[in-house]
């Protein structure tokens, strides 16, 4: 709870900074604030388990704290990556928007009521719409923001409609009350309740950009400034999954026959569409956008195996951490490479990166190996946990499909590696990057490998 107050406070402070002229100290202040919020999470661990606040609207259990931890850690890395973004114009606006989006993300990890779910999603999304369009003289960025807004509003509409139907059937917004209602009246729920569940499902699938609700993602990812793309594919995604998980594992766990098969089809579709489309992309940024759809499908697989209790939760936690860290490393490299090439992140821009900046090439390689799921990186364990959750259920066929499409995934991740090591660079001059980014790359790479070597800390976190 204290962490959320700090982040919200920082957001308000950022808006005041323009007036009171302390823009310069804002950046260190935010970094310290995030670290403080992260550290405070530890004091609350196990301490106020099940404490509910604001009339049972928010609940801070360990799951919420763990996902907040992932989000805050990613946010810390992200702020290091995005230091340029807070230097030119609209500095305080950028700070405020990102911090408020962060508040929304944190809210999505801890909601215990449908209204807080909706509020969280909106608080997260509205700043993101603006941030996507924040390169305001760039047509692609404007288009990205606009598309994101239209599609996001649609999804919000679905969500509201779904919530209304569920409220109509069960008479409550409270997650636990809905869950209790389902388990008591399992047999005679009205048909519109199921419609409500499916509408909520569709809305959430929009937010995590699973096929066939993914069409906004590639354009938005490509058009937005690279750092914002990194924000979307890490923090926003983690938050959306925390919410997805809480809704479908806890609240609607009783009616999993209704949404299970739909989800299975969505996963299958996402795996196939995302991997095949990603393989044909020329732009690395766009490729990462499509690959994020495939990672979403993997995380959804952990939700699909819904009878595994906390194992599913820790698998999703691990996956989102591994994926976020790997993505931050990848986007750091993409950011610098595309800066060299005046904004283009085409695969040719990566040619010969191993000669121009060996460290970046090595870190990018580790990130790609992790995203492709090669041991002993964290990405491998992430996929392993998902497989081991799903094996032996009736969804064995999804595992086979996931494996076949992973092989396609290797193709496009390795295309980047091959380009970096094997193709001759267009320019011979070296690339210089900030020392803070060097540290960031080293940290994320180290993290990726360390998480792969000792996954215990994350997966045994719930005891």
């Amino acid at each position, binding site marked *: 709870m204290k962490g959320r107050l700090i982040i919200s406070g920082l957001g308000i402070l950022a808006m005041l900074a323009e007036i009171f002229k302390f823009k310069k100290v804002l950046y260190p202040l935010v970094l310290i604030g995030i670290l403080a919020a992260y550290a405070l999470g530890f004091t609350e661990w196990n301490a106020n388990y099940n404490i509910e606040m604001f009339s049972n609207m928010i609940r801070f259990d360990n799951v919420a704290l763990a996902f907040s931890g992932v989000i805050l850690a990613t946010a810390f890395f992200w702020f290091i990556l995005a230091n340029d973004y807070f230097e030119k114009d609209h500095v305080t606006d950028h700070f405020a928007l990102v911090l408020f989006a962060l508040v929304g993300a944190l809210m999505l990890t801890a909601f215990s009521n449908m209204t807080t779910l909706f509020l969280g999603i909106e608080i997260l999304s509205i700043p993101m719409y603006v941030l996507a369009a924040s390169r305001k003289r760039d047509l692609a960025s404007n288009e990205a923001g606009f598309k994101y807004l239209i599609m996001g509003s649609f999804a919000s509409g679905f969500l509201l409609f779904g919530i209304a139907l569920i409220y109509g059937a069960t008479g409550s917004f409270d997650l636990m009350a809905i869950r209790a209602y389902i388990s008591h009246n399992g047999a005679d729920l009205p048909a519109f309740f199921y419609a409500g569940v499916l509408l909520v499902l569709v809305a959430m699938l929009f937010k995590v950009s699973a096929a066939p609700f993914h069409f906004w993602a590639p354009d938005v990812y490509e058009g937005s400034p690279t750092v914002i793309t990194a924000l979307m594919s890490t923090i926003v995604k983690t938050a959306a999954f925390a919410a997805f998980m809480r809704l479908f594992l806890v609240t609607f766990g009783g009616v999993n026959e209704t949404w299970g098969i739909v989800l299975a089809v969505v996963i299958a579709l996402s795996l196939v569409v995302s991997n095949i489309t990603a393989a044909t992309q020329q732009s690395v940024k766009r490729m990462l956008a499509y690959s994020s759809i495939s990672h979403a499908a993997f995380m959804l697989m952990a939700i699909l195996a819904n009878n595994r209790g906390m194992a599913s939760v820790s698998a999703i936690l691990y996956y989102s951490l591994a994926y976020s860290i790997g993505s931050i490393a990848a986007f750091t490299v993409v950011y610098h490479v595309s800066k060299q090439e005046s904004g283009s992140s085409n695969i040719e821009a990566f040619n010969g990166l191993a000669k121009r900046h060996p460290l970046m090439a090595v870190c990018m390689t580790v990130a790609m*190996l992790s995203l492709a799921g*090669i*041991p*002993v990186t964290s990405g*491998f364990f992430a996929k*392993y946990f998902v*497989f*081991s959750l799903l*094996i*032996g259920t009736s969804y064995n066929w999804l*595992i*086979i499909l996931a*494996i*076949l499409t*992973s*092989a396609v995934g*290797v*193709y496009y991740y*390795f295309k980047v590696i*091959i380009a970096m*090591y*094997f193709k001759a660079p267009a320019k011979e001059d070296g690339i210089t990057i900030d020392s803070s980014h060097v540290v960031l790359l080293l940290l994320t790479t180290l993290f990726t490998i360390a998480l792969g070597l000792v*996954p*215990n800390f994350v*997966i*045994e976190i719930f005891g």
Partner: protein
Amino acid sequence: MLVGLLIIVPLIAGLLVFGTKGKASRNIALGFSLVEFALSIVAFFQYKHNPASADLVLNCTWVESLGIHFAVGLDALSMLLVLLTTFLIPLIILSSFKNEYEKPNSFYGLILIMQMALVGVFTANDGFLFYVFWELALIPIYFICLLWGGENRGAITFKFFVYTLLGSLFMLVGLIYVYSHTGFETGIKSWAIADLYQAGRSLDVNQQSFVFWCIFLAFGIKMPIFPLHTWQPDTYVNAPTQGTMLLSGIMLKMGTFGLIKWLLPLTPLAMEKWGGVAIGLSVFGIIYASCIAIVQKDYKRLIAYSSIAHVGLIAAGILSCTQQGIQGGVMQMLAHGVNVVGLFLIADILLRHTGTRDIDKLGGIRSMNGNFAVLFLIIMLGSVALPLTNGFVGEFLLINGVYQYSAVTAGFAALTVVLGAVYMLRSYQSIMLGERKDSAIAFGSLVGSDKLVLYIICFVIVAFGVYPAPLNDLAEEGTKLIMQNLK
């Protein structure tokens, strides 16, 4: 502890070598690989002295809640393959002394890291660890082939990588499936090999068949077995010589070793049901690859195909599930590992001295360098398994084993002897004998490092051909252990 050292030394050495420059890299790499070889010899005598010694096993918890342990150990079988690995790596490094590679630190560093993974594969006693080492072995060799390979290496190494990765992912599924059936009595799931064996045997025949094909796919691709071999010839030809040696000399054995330790005891029922199909594929591969080898013009490609033929026989012998078949498979794995490294070195020498590997363009080299001709002859004879060479024991046992399974199959499998003699002797004849072609004129004397490697290989071929007992005893012992698990 000793077994832990065997894994950690190449890793540390590899990381050290990354930090060096120029010629120092290869010398340091050679030094460390010799240390590793010495360690494995110590382990060998330790094993002879006391097979149950605590030095030969290591078991630490890795991920407690999932039953994953860092469990490695040396038994008779893994002892042999670790010896093969540690013996070949110094030779492979030595054979590279005349090749000027760019970025030698990365090259030798990757070789040593690969050695770490290979030793890990051969010693792992935990299913999960086995998989991790199995995948780890793939990454260094991918970069070795990619960075120092021949023309068009991008596409070819990529095909190799995707093929093997796909296979191993299926193996992972198969292993997880067995793992999910462990611990019914205790309620604690475990990746320990003994628990996996037990769980595997508790499955019914359909479940076992699923596991069998998942895992067989991975091993079949690695070896490779027809029709999963299409990545192999191009990869072998395009990889740098040392990469080819690693691939064919050691990495191929991961597949056959896996068959023995990680497939047969896991799914005995499925073996009864599907063993015939798998043997059929292996035997078909023998004839198919031999026929293609006969018409090859490129000597390196010829050896690549001969390798498919040899490994087909090994696989058929192992899959026959007989004492002789498996024991022969183990012996042949060792012999083939040594011989094929020698043959690929010869292909490399031919290319370096004459500028071509095209058999038609070569001829009459014997008249230029009689010494080389003798060494080449010995290695070639070892490869066609002449009595008193190291190849003979294994091949004899293998055919014996397949014969016990089915006489007709053995008849086809034995064709490998005839066909092997055809392509080996014919290529030798046209390269070394006959009229001296233009390309042979420049063929001078061999450089010291190449000569040394060839001498060592020839010595091993003859020595273990005449007196195979030390290896054969171990192979027999290891096989008996596996056979116990098959009943």
